[in-house]
């Protein structure tokens, strides 16, 4: 692995000067399974991020959340503000990034699980098997504890409800 890299570096160096020649690097034969597949996934082939777990409330301070059928737009707007400041660096909308995108999250997760993941990530990755699998799926990047209050986490959850 190290040796071809060195070769590549030498190759690039020797090309130096004007505009770089297009160089797509080297290729390796890889196994066809996605590299991100977590070892502990109970259903083979389904990523932790795609798994549906609507009976799992996670571990943390939030025991029960009741969602009004109508989205509280004021709360959602507040949640969006908080999200943009505290979360956006890792979670892009509609796009897998450092962590998964929040779009449609309530189709796969309970509101309690989402809020506990925001409020209690250190314990979640240790004690909640799904959170642990997510950590592995996302290359070991830990979910940062951004110190949100329960009220702020609730507002962020409301914002998630507005995302397709």
């Amino acid at each position, binding site marked *: 692995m190290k040796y071809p890299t060195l070769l590549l570096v030498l190759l690039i160096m020797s090309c130096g000067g004007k505009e770089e020649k297009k160089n797509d690097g080297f290729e390796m034969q890889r196994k066809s399974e996605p590299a991100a597949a977590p070892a502990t996934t109970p259903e083979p082939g389904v990523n932790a991020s795609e798994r549906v777990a609507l009976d799992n409330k996670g571990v943390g301070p939030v025991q029960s959340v009741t969602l009004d059928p109508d989205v509280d737009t004021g709360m959602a707007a507040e949640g969006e503000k908080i999200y*943009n*400041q*505290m979360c*956006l*660096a*890792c979670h892009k909308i509609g796009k897998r*990034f*450092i962590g998964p995108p929040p779009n449609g999250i309530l189709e796969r997760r309970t509101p309690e699980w989402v809020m506990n993941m925001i409020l209690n990530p250190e314990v979640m990755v240790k004690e909640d098997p799904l959170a642990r699998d997510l950590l592995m799926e996302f*290359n*070991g*990047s*830990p979910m*940062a*504890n*951004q*110190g*949100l209050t329960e009220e702020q986490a609730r507002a962020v959850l409301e914002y998630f409800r507005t995302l397709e």
Partner: protein
Amino acid sequence: MTRFKYTIATFLVASLFFVRCGEGGQGSNGALTSNAAERVYVAPGEHDEFYAFISGGFSGQLSVYGLPSGRLFKVIPVFSQDAEKAYGYNEETRPMLNTSHGFIPWDDSHHPDISQTAGELDGRWVFINGNNTPRIAKVDLSLFETTEIIEVPNSAGNHSSAFVTENTEYVVAGTRFSVPIPQRDMPISEYKGNFKGALTFISVDPEDGGMDIKFQLIMPGFDYDLSHPGRGKSHGWFFFTTYNTEEANSLLEVNASQNDKDFIAAVNWKKIEEYVNNGGGTLMPANYAHNVYDESTQMATSTMKKEVRVVNPADVPGAVFLLPTPKSPHGCDVDPSGEYIVGNGKLSADLTVHSFTRMLEAIENEKYDGDAYGIPILSFEDVLAGTVSQPGLGPLHTEFDGEGNAYTTFFISSEVVKWKLGTWEVVDRQPCFYSVGHLMIPGGNSRKPFGKYVVAMNKITKDRYLPTGPEVTQSAQLYDISGDKMELLLDFPTVGEPHYAAGIAADIVKARSKKIFELKDNKHPYGVSTDADVRVERDGKDVHIYMTTIRSHFNPDNIEGVKVGDKVYFHVTNMEQDYDVPHGISMIGANTSELLIMPGQTETFVWEPKQPGVWPFYCTDFCSALHQEMQGYVRVSPANSNTELTWSLGE
């Protein structure tokens, strides 16, 4: 002259004795008790009982230790640049070290003192003096960072500083060296009568701690060595030891040791404050820096101030008196009741203790022994409370335990001596290893000392530690003073010269210690509050990178369109909001230090690329499991190229 010879002889004999002690020091541990280790052991994960803020002397910094363990927690950069923390290197803190002499990357930090309310330590701020280029700094104990530095004009060798009054009304800075005021070109030999000593009273805002020079008292051309405030009954007064009342300007080791007695200057600052509030004093032109770190913008600004109010003591009758004190007194220490003022005469066989009550009586009766430049000199016998007779050689400093005992250090005989206030009898003594300067009892300069321990700060260690070449560590020694006898418990090495220290019960401080900077309160002009605002902007040859960092990436991490000759500002905001998750950043070839950015904080370093190429930067603080992945590249094109300015992350 006979007295002078005798003094020299005493010194010689003493130093012979001392040298012998030093060389034969193995095994001379004093009466080390068998359970000493147990009494300084703080188990893993547990906290110390006291904070000790120990100045670094010629390091210019302030170290934070725990007592009784002697463990070092942090070195707070104050007067010296600190590449580890980017203090004095990053754009935000460089203005902190600005002075009327320009940017000064170093000073000599001496006397920390903790803010007080009603005569008791309140744990809000530590004040400390820079000796060499006279300055007073304020360290905020919610951040443990230096947040304000004010330069002291008309001062030189700012040594009788930085001590606070009972309600932190003032932090006081006295000059050690007298100088021409205003500074001017004149023959040094005309010192006598022409040079003056400025004692500076800096007001402290009770809310935000903002410092401002209220007035400078322009005193005769003596050396003002140390000072302490009155407290309790003597609140409203300040006391300064003097030496070189001979007003010598050369070979002071001989010429400043001629007078039988020098003085403690007693200053009724409340009287002068009233005089100034009524328009008294004169505004004189001056030039001095006032540097303030704003916690919300996370930037320091430096403002040059152009005038200062000076007061001639002769213009405020009844405000300043001189108390004759043998002989070149160094430490000037006031007991917790405020009644006793201890003058530690370096060259005197005895310790002199003055009585505040007797001083007031003598002033009331106008019994003067003469005057010095119009300042009344009281009679020694009229103000004396008592003397501690022949307690040791070379007394320097005294602190108090609040139980009626005083503890004085002796440099030449290298010991701490415990004696009783009122009876003046010596009750105990313990050797120091070696050559002790200051000592510190937590809260020992307040109405309510915490007692329990004394820390002796030693100038010489010789054989006490593993040798490290010619330069060896200086050292502090911890004694338990809770019993009748002092007991040596621990030696611990220090950063720089442990000049002096201030100690406080940990509970008072730790409850106020901040954990993060709130992102929502970040008003840094180049900070970003959301990742959506990340960008790179060109303004002529200046390129501003508005960058964020969170475990475990920089945004952006690929930047192109920078050119040789540009000045590239990396403004990096740490988006983390979790305790103890700082990120660092450094750039290959940047002529400055790394940044070390706390959660929610923005810091800036400047890079001036000199060669075309693709240059990496990376995170310098091991932040997460993917810390090694935290890296990025800047493409630098030749000065005349037209590479477009672009930036990205993960594309």
